[in-house]
Structures are given as structure tokens and as C-alpha cells.
């Protein structure tokens, strides 16, 4: 039993429980939440080290052999995702110390944050479809509560759409899992992979694959299923937006990559072509939506969608480099996207609004904040040599290698439009003269007074720059992760399902 596999799930769980029990002790909650977050990150790093050295790691819950119990599996992709989750929760944990109001703190904000992480880590590590459903629900339920906690009108309106559409996604997912069990009699992913590869009832299996595509597609916010995201992401406090923006859709992307590299690879020409086409539409419609928005967080929300398109693109292309590109893209995107939301939160705190029209002049007063915005913003747009460039480059190269010119054209145009809307924010919020004429001293507190907000932003910006300038280790990791993904046998062998493995 490798204890490292369970740690990313029980660390946030126990942290959450302790925070629930310490309900009324706010100072303790604030401190302990950061400790728990740091512990999660460390556990993730330890897990990666183990997997990197010893290959795919497996833990059978309850000691029952696969496929009878629940299996946790950590391959490189899972480890990367867990670490990213750790980075996120640590950043948001620190940011929240200053961003979250007393009201939310007294009503379980911190426990919810950690239980959310529990669900997310669980989703990354589980090797069992039904268990994935459970982790999805843990994640969703905490995200529901985090989203609407505070009960402001916008939150409630956005929350209802978020809840309904995500529940629909869960319903489709649950049905697909049930049908999968009814058809092949197992829910262990490795076992399913073995069974599906036999090719019996391929038609029904492919149909169920499309249901998984839709269910995970809703979570990942791909075209045309993304509606819940722009409806709701701009309503909660900035820190919550940031962790949602960073992680939640990526769980959908992760699961798409997982099932469409491990289980549903019967007819790649069909399923993955659909994915590629959806990727193109996702990129384009997301970026067009962003170009028309005039509120910082709404612009950023639509950009999540368009960026998801790139991540899915790698899956659709289905070559080692393309998948490596997707993995790299996820690493880059989570950091950058969350950071942009965090910066928007600082802007809102300084000026009291997210509306571009009412903002301006921040570059004059806060040049460092400008730099901290530009790093993730340009990275998002793929400006070299920041992290986003490498991600896009890998995908574009991968697409050109197999002559997929249309998707390259889409990717490039979207990249330009992303640059357009990032410079729009830059021009309106930072460059433009401040329409409100703030007197230079009183209402402009120095950034050092916002240390808890700035530290995570600066940290994430540093990661972005590091991934950009020293991308080799990250690429090496992404490429190895992609190799694992494209070699399901390794995964299956590691899980070694008793019945399936003997066939």
C-alpha cells in the first residue's frame, strides 16, 4: 500500500473536518487552512517524485483486489494535476485571508475550500468510474456552496444555472456509468479498458462514449455546453472565482483525457475527430464571447472556455506531442488563469468595480500591479517566452505534423484574439486615465498593505515565468505523461485487475 496515494485525499478531508469542528474559531481556521493547503502541495510533490521514479502507483482501497474494490491510481498526469491543485489551494488559501469577508469565514468558507480540494484530488486519483462520480459530487457540492455563499443576488441567479447544468451533467454521467456496468459488468477503469478493447458491442460502447463526452464536456465547458460558466464565474468573491477558474473545468478536461486515452480508444478516427472539431468551436466561440465583454471577470471567464479548446485539441489530435501539449497547456493554464482572476480581485479591491469603463489609471499608480497583470495576460495570449507560448507551440507543431491545418488556423486566430482582449483589459484598466480622478495619496494604499493578496499573485507569476524560461523539465514531464497516456497497457498492468488481467 502506497500511503502517498491516499494523502492528497485525506489531507484536505481531515483539514476540512478539523475546520468544521473549529467552526467558531476564525483565527485558527485561517491559519490551519494555510497549513493544510501547504501539506497538500507537499504530498503532491512527494507523490510525483515517487511516480517519476517508480512508475504508475496503485492503491487498493480496503485491500480488495481490483476490480472488486476501489482502486486509486497515480500516473504522471494525476500527479501533475494534484500538484497544481496544491498550488491553487495554497495560493487561494493565502489570498482568502484578506479577500474573504468575516461573514463567509464564519459560515464555513475554509472547510468548504478544503473539501472542494478533496473532491478534486479524488477525481484525479481514482481509477474507478463510479468513485469518480462520487468525487465529482463532493467537488460540485462544495463548489455550489462556495459559489452562492453570501447569498447576493448575482450569486443566486448564477448559482441556479450553475447547479442545474452541473446536475444535468452528473445525471448523464451517472446514467452512462450505470449503462457501462450493465453492459460490461465492471466500473474499474483499467478493467473497463480491457473489456472495451475486446470490441464487443462497439456501437453501444461508442454511444456511451459520447455520453461521457457530453457529461465531461459540460464540466470542462466545451462548445456547445459551456453556458453555466459565463453565467456564474463572475459572481462569487475573487478567490473563489480564481480557484474555480483554475481547477474545476480542468477536472473535466482531465477526465476527458483519462477516459478517451484509456477506455474509449476503439475508433479514434470517430470519437477523437469529434473532440477535435469541438475543440475548434470551443476556442473560437469562447474568444468571441470574451471579445464582446466589458467586465474584467466576464472577459476572463469566456477565455477559460476558449483555452479549454486548446487543451481538448491535444486530445483530439491524439499524438504524443499533442497530448504532451495538452498536459503542458493544463499546467500553464491553471496557474495563469487563476492568477488573472486574483489580479482582477485586487483591481476590484482598489477601485471597487470590475467594469472596464469605470476603471483606469492603475499603471500610473501601481506599475508593479501592471507587471503582475501583464505576465499572466501575455502568457495566456501565448506571447513568448512565457508559459503559454510553449503550450501553444507544442499543439500547433503537433497539428502541423499530422497536417491538421484547419485547427491550426483556428488556434492561431484565437491566439490573436486572446491577445486582443488581454490588451483591451490592459488599455482600459491600466493605461487609460482614471475616469474617477482618485486623489493620488489617500485612496491609493501601497500594495504592501495588500500583502496577502499580492504574495500569491507574485508567486504564481514567478511560476509562469519559470515555466517559460526553463520549460525543459516541464516538457520532459509532459511528454512522459503523454507517453503513459498513449500506452494504456502500462496503466492496466499497474492496476492488474484480477478478472480482466487474466484474459
Amino acid at each position: 500500500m502506497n500511503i502517498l496515494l491516499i494523502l492528497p485525499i485525506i489531507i484536505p478531508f481531515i483539514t476540512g473536518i478539523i475546520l468544521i469542528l473549529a467552526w467558531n474559531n476564525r483565527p485558527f481556521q485561517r491559519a490551519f487552512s494555510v497549513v493544510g493547503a501547504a501539506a497538500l502541495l507537499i504530498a503532491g510533490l512527494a507523490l510525483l517524485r515517487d511516480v517519476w521514479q517508480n512508475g504508475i502507483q496503485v492503491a487498493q482501497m480496503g485491500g480488495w483486489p481490483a476490480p472488486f474494490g476501489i482502486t486509486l491510481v497515480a500516473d504522471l498526469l494525476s500527479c501533475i494535476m494534484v500538484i497544481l491543485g496544491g498550488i491553487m489551494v495554497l495560493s487561494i488559501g493565502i489570498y482568502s485571508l484578506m479577500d474573504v469577508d468575516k461573514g463567509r469565514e464564519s459560515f464555513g468558507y475554509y472547510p468548504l475550500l478544503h473539501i472542494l480540494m478533496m473532491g478534486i484530488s479524488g477525481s484525479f486519483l481514482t481509477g474507478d468510474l463510479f468513485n469518480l462520480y462520487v468525487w465529482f459530487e463532493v467537488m460540485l457540492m462544495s463548489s455550489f456552496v462556495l459559489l452562492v455563499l453570501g447569498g447576493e443576488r448575482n450569486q443566486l441567479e448564477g448559482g441556479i444555472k450553475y447547479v442545474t447544468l452541473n446536475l444535468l451533467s452528473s445525471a448523464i454521467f451517472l446514467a452512462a456509468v450505470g449503462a457501462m456496468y450493465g453492459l460490461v459488468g465492471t466500473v474499474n477503469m483499467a478493467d473497463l479498458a480491457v473489456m472495451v478493447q475486446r470490441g464487443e458491442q462497439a456501437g453501444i460502447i461508442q454511444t456511451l462514449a459520447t455520453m461521457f463526452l457530453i457529461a465531461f464536456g459540460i464540466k470542462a465547458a466545451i462548445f456547445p455546453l459551456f453556458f453555466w460558466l459565463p453565467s456564474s464565474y463572475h459572481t462569487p468573491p475573487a478567490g473563489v472565482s480564481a480557484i474555480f477558474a483554475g481547477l474545476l473545468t480542468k477536472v473535466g478536461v482531465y477526465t476527458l483525457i483519462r477516459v478517451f486515452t484509456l477506455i474509449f480508444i476503439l475508433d479514434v478516427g470517430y470519437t477523437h475527430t469529434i473532440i477535435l472539431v469541438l475543440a475548434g468551436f470551443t476556442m473560437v466561440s469562447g474568444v468571441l464571447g470574451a471579445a464582446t465583454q466589458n467586465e474584467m471577470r466576464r472577459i476572463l471567464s469566456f477565455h477559460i472556455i476558449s483555452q479549454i479548446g486548446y487543451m481538448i485539441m491535444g486530445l483530439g489530435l491524439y499524438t504524443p506531442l499533442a497530448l504532451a501539449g495538452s498536459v503542458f497547456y493544463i499546467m500553464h493554464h491553471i496557474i495563469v488563469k487563476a492568477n488573472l482572476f486574483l489580479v482582477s480581485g485586487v483591481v476590484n479591491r482598489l477601485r471597487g468595480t470590475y467594469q472596464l469603463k469605470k476603471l483606469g489609471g492603475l499603471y500610473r499608480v501601481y506599475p508593479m500591479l501592471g507587471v503582475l497583470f501583464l505576465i499572466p495576460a501575455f502568457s495566456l495570449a501565448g506571447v513568448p517566452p512565457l508559459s503559454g507560448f510553449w503550450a501553444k507551440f507544442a499543439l500547433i507543431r503537433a497539428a502541423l505534423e499530422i497536417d491538421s491545418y484547419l485547427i491550426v488556423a483556428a488556434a492561431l486566430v484565437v491566439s490573436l484574439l486572446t491577445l486582443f482582449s488581454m490588451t483591451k483589459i490592459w488599455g482600459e484598466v491600466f493605461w487609460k486615465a482614471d475616469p474617477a480622478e482618485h486623489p493620488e495619496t489617500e485612496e491609493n494604499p501601497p500594495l504592501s498593505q495588500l500583502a496577502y493578496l499580492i504574495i500569491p499573485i507574485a508567486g504564481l507569476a514567478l511560476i509562469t515565468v519559470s515555466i517559460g524560461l526553463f520549460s525543459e523539465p516541464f516538457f520532459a514531464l509532459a511528454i512522459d505523461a503523454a507517453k503513459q497516456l498513449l500506452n494504456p497497457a502500462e496503466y492496466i498492468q499497474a492496476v492488474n485487475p484480477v478478472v480482466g488481467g487474466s484474459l
Partner: protein
Amino acid sequence: MEVLLAVVVGILYAAGFYMIMRRSIVKLILGLGLLGHASNMFIFTIGRVMRGNPPVMPHGHDVLTQPYADPLPQAFILTAIVIGFGVQAFATVLVKRAYQTVGTDDFDQMISTDQP
């Protein structure tokens, strides 16, 4: 039996889908409830139905002897029911709060977060 149950499942889903597309947010809650039942019945039916014979061993036996209903879909449904209850409770209260805050249960008046 399965054929008829399939029809029931289909009707439950259809009714659920219909209800969540209404303009009233209260109907949304009822629709989600129907969808929950539909999902449970779906898993139950598609995991094959076996009349009688619950997967419980009589005392004194140490193995479950044929025929018995497949216990796994039942465990799935149990989990799904419980999770569904939690979600349903939360959604109900959410709708109540939205109703109080917005002042109507008309969905057409809850589109402000989507206006650019």
C-alpha cells in the same frame, strides 16, 4: 418487465427534462427530483432486474447462493440516492433564497448575470 421499466424510465426522464425547462424555478426543483428518480430507475433496470431474492444471506450461510439480485447496482443507487438528497435539499433552499431575493419565481427575470 425490463421493456416496461424502460418505458417508465423514459417517461420519468422526459417529465424531468420537461420540468427543468419551465419558466418557474420551483418547477425546476420538482424536475430535478424527477430526474433523480429517473436516474435511479435507469441504473436499477439497466443493471438487470431480478424479482425477489435480495442479496442478503440467510443466517448460517457464509456465501450468497444463486439466484440473487446483483448487489452492486443497488449500492450505486443507494449512494446516488443519498447524494441526490443532499443536492436536492441544497437546491431547494437555493431556489427559495433566489425567490426571496429576486422577488419572483420567473426564470426570465434571472438573466442579469448573462448580460454583457
